């Protein structure tokens, strides 16, 4: 073996283990990399892309023609256009109505059912799944069911007329002014059971010793819940609020299915506004701007939440 050959062999031997070592060190990161890259491009990159589009004059197709804040300015002006109301104004008002009712009643019913179920109930194993099953249904199925139920010709109104209560009147689902309440009813029916499960988990996690102490001190059940249990499970309220707010802002299919494709835009929400401006009205830039506003709204809720979650895990 010549000197040179020996040197290369040695170099190869040196390179071999170190390359393998490098690979071993980096293998976990390489495994994670594709997922992270996908999220980076398809979530963060795409959000930036949408942000960019919202500053362009895109119509049916994306363009790179920048026009500054014009699209946001139009949305801002539409926000106050009440006579006749612009679609964006309707979307915002409906968002407030739907979101407010949906979140409030889901929390209220969820907590109420959880507390009721927490009273040494016989048959809890039967009741709990009944409250929860709507969650397994898609919003399209939920909407289809409630559309039938609320339809005055064949639904609840007709049934009560049939039973003799002829003055009963309930035609919200065909009344443009009331449609959004029907969307809220269907949404509350679909999601309140889930909130119940979250609260029940919270209640079951409360230390029994504290309750025993309260009982010895002579506190009534109501006082115990009001002063002790509910304050302890406050984090559950926060989690539920996050989930519900997120669902309310995103929900799109529920509106379509309950109202039958949102006739006249009466049940418009930012989500339906975004879709119709982007894909049917050929106003992609406006659609993008509204999507950015939706994203900002969710980020305003989510970022502090995720921040506190990851900090908690630090401890």
């Amino acid at each position, binding site marked *: 073996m010549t000197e040179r050959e020996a040197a290369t062999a040695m170099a190869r031997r040196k390179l071999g283990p170190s390359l393998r070592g490098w690979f071993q060190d980096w293998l976990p990161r390489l495994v994670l990399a594709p997922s992270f890259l996908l999220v980076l491009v398809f979530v963060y990159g795409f959000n930036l892309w949408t942000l960019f589009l919202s500053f362009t004059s895109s119509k049916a197709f994306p363009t790179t023609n920048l026009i500054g804040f014009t699209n946001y300015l139009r949305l801002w002006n539409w926000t106050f256009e009440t006579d006749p109301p612009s679609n964006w104004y309707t979307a915002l008002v409906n968002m407030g109505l739907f979101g407010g009712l949906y979140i409030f009643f889901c929390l209220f019913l969820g907590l109420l059912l959880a507390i009721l179920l927490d009273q040494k109930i016989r048959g809890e194993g039967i009741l709990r799944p009944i409250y929860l099953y709507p969650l397994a249904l898609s919003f399209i199925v939920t909407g289809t069911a409630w559309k*039938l139920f609320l339809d005055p010709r064949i639904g609840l109104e007709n*049934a009560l007329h049939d039973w003799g209560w002829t003055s009963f009147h309930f035609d919200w689902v065909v009344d443009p002014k009331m449609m959004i309440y029907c969307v809220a009813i269907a949404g509350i029916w679909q999601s309140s059971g889930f909130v119940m*499960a979250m609260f029940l988990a919270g209640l079951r996690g409360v230390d029994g010793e504290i309750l025993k102490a309260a009982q010895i001190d002579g506190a009534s059940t109501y006082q115990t819940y009001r002063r002790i249990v509910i304050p302890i499970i406050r984090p559950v309220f926060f989690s539920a609020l996050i*989930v519900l707010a997120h669902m309310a802002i995103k929900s799109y299919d529920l509106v379509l*299915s309950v109202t039958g494709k949102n006739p006249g835009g009466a049940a418009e929400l930012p989500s339906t506004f975004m879709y119709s401006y982007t894909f049917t009205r050929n106003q992609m830039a406006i659609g993008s701007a509204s*999507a950015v506003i939706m994203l900002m709204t969710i980020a305003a809720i989510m970022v502090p939440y995720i921040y506190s979650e990851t900090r908690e895990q630090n401890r």
Partner: protein
Amino acid sequence: MSAADLVTSAPPRRRPGHSPTTRIVIYGLLFLFALVYLVPLVVMVMTSLKPLDEVTGGNMFALPRHLTFAPWSMAWGEARIGVSDTRGISGYFFNSVKMVVPAVLISTLLGALNGYVLTKWSFPGHKLVFGMMLFACFIPFQSVIIPMAVILGMLGRIGVNLADLTGWSFGLGNATVNLVIVHVIYGLGFTTLFFRNYYAAFPSELIKAAMIDGASFFQIFRRILLPNSTPIIIVTVIYQFTNIWNDFLFGSTFAAGDTAPMTVALNNLVNTSTGVVEYNVNMAAAIIAAAPTLLVYVIAGRYFVRGLMAGAVKG
């Protein structure tokens, strides 16, 4: 013990006995709510078993007088979906199956690998990576659909070129493949979250011992972690299955006509503007659309709740 375990396994807490009146009120309320949650499903089922004249002319709470399964076979095989298709929802049902199976399997596997790396092979910055993937769970899909549509359109054109060149498009441009890609990407955040939280509690000593014995990165994953992951795999699969099966926004945006998934077909069937509304057929179709997720809920309800809880609060 996680919060969800508490819901499903903790026995009801001992509580001071209520007066008989209070107990009647509690049971009365619980029963009333159970009725409210059940009624829409019962009405759906009954409506689907009635001939149309009984639906439009009768009381929706009345039992079917002429029990018929015709609406079910209509919905499955003959109903008009959209403008031209009169082959019922069966094809769309299988579109959904073809989409949901690979999407669930791929996103679950990737989530498991990601969770393994993030907990057992942590590297500088893993918290930021995880935080970014976690935020990806909560973005409104409206803020990514325009770029996604552009990219999928480009992939479609590449697919056509590939097909011209090689005779095979490699699945590019196929609507089902597109939806699988989309659902895998936007499910990664959740599946990673589930597995990360689960593996965080997995004893690291076992892994260190295996490393000393010379087990490789993938051997440890396959021989030690995976066999111990059954509960979290079930939760993730159920969660992903429900989410993807019930999705409407992506389905309606990225898959048109014959290639649409079940939710889109159901919406087209129910919200068709032509002809007589066949409520009984619509309800049969809605039940068929809901059947897979309801079945999962009935069979694995406790895991279903756990999965949704883990998605909402920390598992």
